[in-house]
């Protein structure tokens, strides 16, 4: 979209203001071209994730949520900013700290919370839990519990997207690639160029599968962007202690013929400004990408992390640069005036509107918790064996055993 034709382009700030903001002589950034409403929605998305996670922690502490739980607080800008730069039908796959991805992709807080409660109305009928948020209609192909193993899936999703665009498009009467498992006889809408976002933590950089996947992606020219949510720690091991070249991770990607970039993940507007053109290029050129996205998690690795590996002062230092506070400040600062992070104020959000939004979100998440509480638990007889096989041939011994019960028919 060129600046001249952008219908929603805001009034440009004066050159004097730009000078003050340190942007003299530069053309408007991608985020400056976006309407206020979009930025307000981003703020809301981040606030929703944070509120959701706070209630998740509370529910976990009340033992309402089983297993393990990894909280996304602090990293909200990552997912909101990168999703904003791609299309809704671009496939996404991520690791286990995935509640933010699910919500930002459009999963309802109800389905997400009920999943963690292990309830029937969770996104996977309560069978997947916190680490395995899956949302097919929103093109979210799961959170994954095995560190780094999802990087190959990202390569595969990107392969399929490129194959759809490059090969199937050319074949008249070709099946629609919708994963339904059946050759589709409906008319085919030509597939466009897609780009897959594959998120991983910095710990995943040390897994073998990551290196296999980058090699495959670089070699085959797969449109997948590996977004490293670099929060500085793989569980309790700081990146310097666990990973070579921690200060220059993009060199790892360079070894696979992939040009990587570093992004400050705590400032949503800068993040978007840098990521948007990068993602567009990966899509256009159908090439892989690699982003060292520097972020920070405020909570421990999981809910049971004693956090001996870092100081309270360190956490506090990052909280002072909080991504939600920063964006809120930009939106609330007078229009065109320099605001936090060298951005120009938008003057589109009042204190009162902000508080209203907070109240709305609190209520929305409260209702999600209520929904999860009230959602029925899955019935063993109904659910234990469903969704294991799409085509369960007769004689599947497990199903048989279930119907026969534990009692041997001869006894």
């Amino acid at each position, binding site marked *: 979209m060129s600046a001249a034709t952008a219908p929603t382009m805001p009034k440009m700030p004066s050159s004097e203001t730009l000078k003050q903001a340190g942007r003299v002589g530069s053309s408007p950034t991608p985020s400056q071209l976006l309407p206020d409403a979009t930025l307000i929605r981003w703020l809301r998305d981040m606030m929703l994730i944070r509120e959701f996670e706070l209630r998740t922690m509370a529910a976990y502490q009340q033992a309402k949520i089983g297993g393990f739980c990894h909280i996304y607080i602090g990293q909200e800008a990552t997912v909101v900013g990168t999703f904003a730069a791609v299309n809704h039908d671009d496939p996404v*796959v991520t690791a286990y700290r995935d509640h933010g991805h699910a919500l930002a992709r459009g999963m309802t807080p109800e389905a997400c919370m009920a999943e963690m409660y292990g309830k029937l109305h969770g996104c*996977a*009928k309560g*069978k*997947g839990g916190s680490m*395995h948020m*899956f949302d*097919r209609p929103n093109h979210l*192909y*799961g959170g*994954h519990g*095995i560190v780094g*193993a999802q*990087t*190959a*899936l*990202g*390569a*595969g*999703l*990107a*392969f*399929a*997207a490129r*194959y759809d665009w*490059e*090969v*199937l498009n050319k*074949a008249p009467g*070709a*099946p629609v*690639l*919708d*994963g*339904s*498992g059946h*050759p589709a006889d409906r008319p085919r809408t030509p597939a466009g160029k897609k780009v897959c976002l594959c998120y991983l933590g910095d710990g995943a950089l040390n897994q*073998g*599968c990551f290196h*296999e*996947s980058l*090699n*495959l992606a670089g*070699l*085959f020219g797969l449109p997948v962007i590996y977004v490293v949510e670099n929060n500085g720690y793989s569980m309790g091991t700081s990146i310097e202690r666990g990973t070579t070249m921690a200060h220059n991770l993009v060199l790892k990607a360079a070894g696979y013929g992939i040009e990587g970039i570093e992004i400050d993940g705590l400032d949503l507007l800068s993040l978007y400004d840098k990521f948007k053109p990068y993602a567009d290029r990966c899509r256009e050129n159908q090439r892989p990408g690699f982003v060292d996205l520097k972020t920070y998690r405020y909570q421990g690795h999981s809910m049971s992390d004693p956090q001996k590996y870092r100081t309270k002062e360190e956490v506090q230092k990052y909280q002072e640069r909080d991504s939600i506070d920063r964006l809120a400040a930009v939106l609330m600062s007078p229009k065109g005036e320099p605001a936090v992070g060298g951005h120009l104020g938008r003057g589109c959000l009042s204190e009162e509107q902000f508080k209203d939004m907070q109240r709305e979100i609190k209520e929305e998440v409260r209702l999600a918790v209520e929904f999860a509480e009230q959602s029925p638990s899955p019935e063993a007889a109904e659910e234990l064996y*469903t*969704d*294991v*096989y*799409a*085509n*369960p*041939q*007769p*004689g*599947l*011994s497990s199903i*048989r055993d279930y119907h026969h019960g534990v009692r*041997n028919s*001869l006894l």
Partner: protein
Amino acid sequence: MASLTLVQAINLALTQEMEADDRVVMLGEDIGKNGGVFRVTEGLQARFGADRVIDSPLAESGIIGTAIGMAMAGLRPVPEIQFEGFLGPAYDQIVNHAARYRTRSRGSVTIPITIRVPVGGGIHAPELHSDSPEAIYVHTPGIKVVMPSSPYDAKGLLISAIRDPDPVIFFEPKRIYRAFREEVPEDEYTIPIGKAKIVESGNDLTVISWGATVLQCVEALDKLPEDLSVELIDLRTCYPIDQDCLIESVNKTGRCVIVHEAPKTCGLGAEIATIIQEHCFLSLRAPVQRVCGFDTIMPYYKLELEYLPNADRIAESILACAAY
């Protein structure tokens, strides 16, 4: 109808399924230009192009993981792993991803992937190139495991596997890749997954086997006295197990010998023996026998034939079971 080897029958099935469905894509080490380490995919890249028959880097976890991603998006990948031992690096992807997606996604995503793997010993190869790991994958809910013993079955089962919406590990007994020929129809046909085959009918004793060992069982039958009537069952699909076929046979004969190449302890034979114990207890007239590989690392070729069940061992076991 042509007389084909196992390799040719598999190649024909792959050709026909690729012809029929643009979503079928193959990837693996050296499968394109070189036609695969056993030449199973010979000529397919020339025919269907490098977009669909892909020479991948040497990276089993990457190959299977990528194929799973492709399957999630709606393709029907048929990756090849060169030897069963190399499933090790891909194990994580198979067990932790392919097997579980359907459950995790509330049934919204299936993984229609067919992993082709040469399996078993008998070609003078060392360990990692001669193993029989089928029980490991049978023990993994969410996966189906197929192992044909003849060219005809291989073609029909492979077509079923590729069309099946669930992940299938298709084990190809490498020892019989070119051991014999069989009439294989040119037209496409399917053999249902989960159905065993009665190779020989009989009334006195049931022999159950699968893969290349079925041939050793046939050989063993020739060594038996003529008045001993043995029923030989080829399982064909290791999972789901055709329980009805096994139970019906053993309820008829009252005696059972299970033969497989894999090590004895916790081999698939143990599961089958248990199924028989559970369902045929009142019909049994002898303890269930197992003739298996030994609980050791598959030996290199000088000892290979000591390890593999042979016709003599099988015949001896059948006679002991029949005489009990």
